[in-house]
């Protein structure tokens, strides 16, 4: 409290703290997976962790647009908006990469693979549900990229201009709803696989 006097420094301090936390959590999951010989499980845990992180940063961004005190804490609000959108964008890239690694394992021709088991137990969970998640999930990069670009381009104007603020709130809200819909498409097959496996 005595070391950090102004709010901007405090915001930067908390952001650094959170980002270090995210890095160590990711590293910890990978390390544990390697140590226990459960690499694919660790990758899928990373996948889930970043899905939650993207959803949380999206919600923080909407809250920030609604409640930020732009008159007195403009620099803090802009920094938080920039970092939260960038975190969401990086998260979406990690989600796609880890999802792709998981997909290679999922669609293995082995009779014990998740795809083979799901097709035997509940074929609809693979097609259309899992396939919808695969293809619709690709939209996430473009969508998050657009929100991030608008935020970094307009900076403090996103808080001042009502049209921009409303557009970003609608875009982020719809992105969260869409992400939850896609996540549901993935939950059904993975839960079936995990129960049966």
């Amino acid at each position, binding site marked *: 409290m005595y070391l950090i006097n102004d709010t901007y420094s405090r915001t930067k301090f908390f952001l650094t703290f959170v980002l270090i936390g995210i890095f160590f959590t990711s590293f910890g999951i990978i390390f544990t997976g390697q140590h226990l010989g459960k690499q694919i499980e660790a990758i899928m845990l990373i996948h889930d962790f970043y899905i939650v992180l993207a959803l949380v940063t999206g919600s923080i961004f909407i809250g920030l647009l609604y409640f930020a005190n732009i008159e007195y804490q403009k620099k803090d609000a802009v920094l938080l908006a920039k970092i939260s959108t960038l975190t969401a964008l990086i998260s979406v890239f990690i989600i796609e990469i880890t999802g792709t690694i998981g997909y290679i394992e999922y669609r293995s021709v082995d009779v014990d693979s998740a795809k083979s088991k799901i097709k035997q137990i509940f074929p609809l969970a693979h097609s259309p549900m899992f396939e919808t998640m695969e293809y619709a999930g690709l939209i996430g990069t473009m969508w998050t990229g657009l929100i991030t*670009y608008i935020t970094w381009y307009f900076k403090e104007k996103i808080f001042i201009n009502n049209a921009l603020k409303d557009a970003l709130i609608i875009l982020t809200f719809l992105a969260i709803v869409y992400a939850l819909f896609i996540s549901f498409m993935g939950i059904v097959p993975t839960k079936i696989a995990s129960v049966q496996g």
Partner: protein
Amino acid sequence: MESKTRINSITASIYGVSGSIAAAFIACSISIISIGILTAIRHTFPFNEWLVPTSLLSQYGGIFLYSHLIWIASWILLYSQLKKRITFGQIRHWMIIFIGSVLATTLIMMYVLDWMKIFILFIPR
């Protein structure tokens, strides 16, 4: 007070955006539509071959690769063409186009991936 609110709402509704922002919206919409189209034609010759850069990922790998390439290439191209435009359309219009492209792609996917099989389960017999 009332007139100030009216001015604010009028300003908001006609807020024009620069060419670079319009380029970002258009590039995103094009790449999102491309995902829907590539999903629809993924089993059709010659796309069933083109869309398989690696056998490990099947057509998913191609849709991933080409949709992202379309996104980046169209953004670069549109940005270079539109960056000097001070205003190019209104944010409301670009929002409608973007949401329309997401909706169109989702509907294409639902049709192609045969979601009727799921909906039929909810129809009482």
